[in-house]
């Protein structure tokens, strides 16, 4: 038994070319040591240079280097990977010399974290899912590329129109954090609201209720038929805001939601918030929430709802794809803007939460950032957008893209709800800006407890305001404000 550390490699059969290994082993000391000592090394040791840019032409407005490799990492979630693979094929067709490396994972952060630290991230990332990398941190640490060149480039279908002019309202604004630069492009377009079965409502001989009194009446009627009024993802109560926040906006006006996003003192103590909390609490108190709901996860609650155990479900438009296996064919899936309180609400019935989902980013350290943006430009073209919509039953950031394809019931209802809402679309940002506050504190410890009957609305308001104040004071978090 020898005693040199070279034996390490030998013993495991790695001994080939020991010399190289040994020098590499020295390298292993040097790289982390660099990031150790130089407190702000901007690239932690990756040696390769960025791809040179190619010639800008009408067909290649971003100047993609035809021969450069492009790497695209997709979040493999509810939308699957097919839509992106199709878009990659277009890229490969347009740049036949380019090698494209496409991969999909559910563990975005564990997979990509080392690459960011090494200064060697991929060229395009769909930064989504439970292991989403914190966008505020990425922006704050200058890890993302400004997408303005993409937005100002001619669109894929019409050279006279800029990409930014083909997008749905609000998409560009959502991609900003501070100032004018746009860091994130949300590719999917999500309609949030109250999801229900038209067939079940018809069987009750009811319309979707517009005031809370009507809501309670419908729930009472449903209960007589052995059906609960509501269920929700009890284990992830941050699904409740999907209908609660736009209701607050409808009752008290946009300012209330903006104040909440801005973490203003006493934002949650606004009467509109309290009134909406009380309305929801009434659902619990009257026994209109499906029994056992606080112990259900999102899939379980969606399945119970799809099986007709409950009438209403707060959710986003991905539910149609996610629960496709359990939603019966004659369900008549529909979404409505949330029910308000009554005639004194600030905004009309139809006020809706709709915003971007699936955040795509191009890292600042990408070797071939132009390629990543070009891939996005392709995806924002009408053909790719239609492909997405027909495959995964969801809209994209591309404004339009629904002509000529058969819309599924939920999607159709979502489009109708958007049309009805017109300008009355709200977009609370708190879930992007302060993830821990939104999910763990407001969602689980506040709303979840209230809907399980363990907090009164007044207590919930006080607790949540406390959480918001705490977050506002926390200097380790970057704070954002509505413009």
């Amino acid at each position: 038994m020898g005693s040199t550390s070279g034996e390490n490699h030998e013993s495991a059969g790695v001994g080939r070319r020991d010399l190289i290994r040994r020098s590499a082993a020295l390298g292993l000391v040097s790289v982390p040591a660099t990031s150790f000592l130089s407190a702000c090394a901007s690239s932690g040791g990756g040696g390769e240079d960025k791809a040179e840019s190619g010639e800008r032409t009408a067909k290649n407005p971003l100047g993609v280097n035809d021969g450069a490799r492009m790497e695209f990492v997709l979040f493999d979630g509810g939308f699957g990977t097919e839509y992106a693979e199709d878009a990659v094929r277009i890229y490969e067709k347009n740049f036949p010399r380019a090698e494209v490396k496409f991969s999909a994972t559910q563990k975005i952060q564990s997979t990509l974290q080392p690459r960011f630290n090494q200064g060697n991230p991929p060229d395009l990332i769909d930064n989504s899912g439970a292991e989403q990398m914190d966008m505020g941190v990425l922006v704050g640490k200058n890890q993302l590329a400004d997408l303005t060149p993409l937005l100002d480039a001619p669109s894929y279908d019409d050279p006279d129109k800029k990409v930014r002019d083909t997008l749905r309202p609000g998409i560009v604004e959502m991609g900003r954090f501070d100032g004018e630069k746009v860091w994130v492009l949300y590719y999917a377009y999500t309609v949030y609201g109250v999801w229900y079965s038209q067939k079940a409502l018809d069987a009750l001989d009811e319309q979707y209720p517009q005031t809370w009194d009507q809501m309670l009446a419908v729930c009472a009627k449903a209960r007589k038929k052995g059906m609960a009024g509501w269920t929700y993802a009890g284990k992830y109560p941050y699904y409740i805001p999907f209908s609660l926040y736009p209701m607050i906006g409808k009752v008290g006006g946009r300012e209330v939601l903006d104040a909440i996003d801005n973490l203003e003192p006493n934002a949650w103590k606004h009467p509109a918030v309290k009134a909406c909390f009380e309305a929801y609490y009434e659902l619990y108190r009257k026994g209109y929430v499906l029994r056992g709901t606080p112990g259900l996860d999102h899939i379980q609650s969606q399945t119970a709802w799809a099986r007709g155990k409950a009438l209403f479900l707060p959710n986003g438009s991905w539910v149609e794809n996610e629960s496709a296996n359990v939603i019966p064919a004659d369900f008549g899936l529909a979404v409505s803007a949330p029910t308000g309180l009554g005639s004194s609400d600030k905004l009309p019935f139809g006020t809706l939460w709709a915003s971007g989902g699936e955040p795509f980013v191009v890292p600042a350290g990408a070797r071939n950032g132009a390629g990543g943006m070009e891939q996005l430009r392709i995806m924002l073209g009408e053909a790719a957008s239609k492909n997405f919509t027909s495959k995964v039953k969801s809209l994209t950031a591309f404004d339009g893209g629904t002509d000529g394809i058969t819309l599924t019931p939920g999607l159709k209802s979502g489009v109708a709800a958007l049309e009805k809402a017109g300008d009355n679309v709200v977009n609370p940002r708190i879930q992007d800006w302060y993830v821990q506050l939104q999910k763990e504190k407001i969602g689980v410890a506040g709303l979840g407890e209230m809907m399980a009957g363990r907090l009164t609305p007044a207590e919930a308001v006080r607790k949540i305001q406390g959480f918001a104040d705490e977050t506002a004071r926390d200097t380790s978090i970057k704070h954002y404000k509505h413009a």
Partner: protein
Amino acid sequence: MQHGKYRFIAGFLAVPLGLYALFVVWPFIQSIYYSFTDWTGLSPEFEMVGFGNYERMLDDEIFWKSLRHSLLFALVLPLVTIALALFFAFMINAGGRKRKGGPAVTGVRGASFYQIVYFFPQVLSIAIVALLFAFAYNPDSGAVNSLLRGIGLDGVQPLWLGDPDLALWCVMAVLVWSTVGFFVVLFSAGMASIPAELYEAALLDGANRVTTFFRVTLPLLWDTVQSGWVYLGILALGAESFAVVQIMTTGPGGPDYSTTVMVLYVYQKAFRDGQAAYATTIGVALLVVTLAFAAAVMRLGRRERLEY
């Protein structure tokens, strides 16, 4: 004896220690270093912040909650698991009825059947076990509540994981369920190795099975019990409790922080909030707690070694 001793020691330690230092200690030291910085985990930039993260941790209410839950895990899980495992192993090996002309102590009928069956959960990855039970605990249509309804207990339909008073215990029950089996096999192998004469002598002294267990069986198994205790405690503080809490609980970590354990909080800070440095700080606290736990068990458990 002295001749070549140090060469031998060095030769035997070099490879394992080298490998360990390279892949475990060195990365660990680097991450501990990060606890004195404001590293986000998402970029190579960071600055030194001294003890800032540690001060913040001491003021962090959620940290204290997670510490309490972790300690509870580390105490209750080994206690219940080892007690159950010892009980089952003793039953299997000494619970049988005496028969004419047979040994003084016999196992129950079907002893090896039990040993096989009890081991089953151990072959499943903890992630799978957690998913299975998350499903069973579903208050609406899960197996547990369906069973309760089936036997006429319609009124008793707990929320299980949705109830802050029950959630932590539900999670612990799953860990006990999945870990008992291995220790039954381990202990019963140990018990089978205890010479029958020792039991006979004890029985001659008029001891019943309970006193036999405490006077003969337990002392002879003590080393195994102690190692098992440390192993389980570490599992409870670390990897295993993370998987179950992460997969099964509300939020995860809820409802209302009732199941937040340290290792989950580490994960959330590092992988959700982009605060890797702070996560590392909590990781260091976890390291301290675990070492203290292991030291306490080893010290409290030190006994005269019985040779037989």
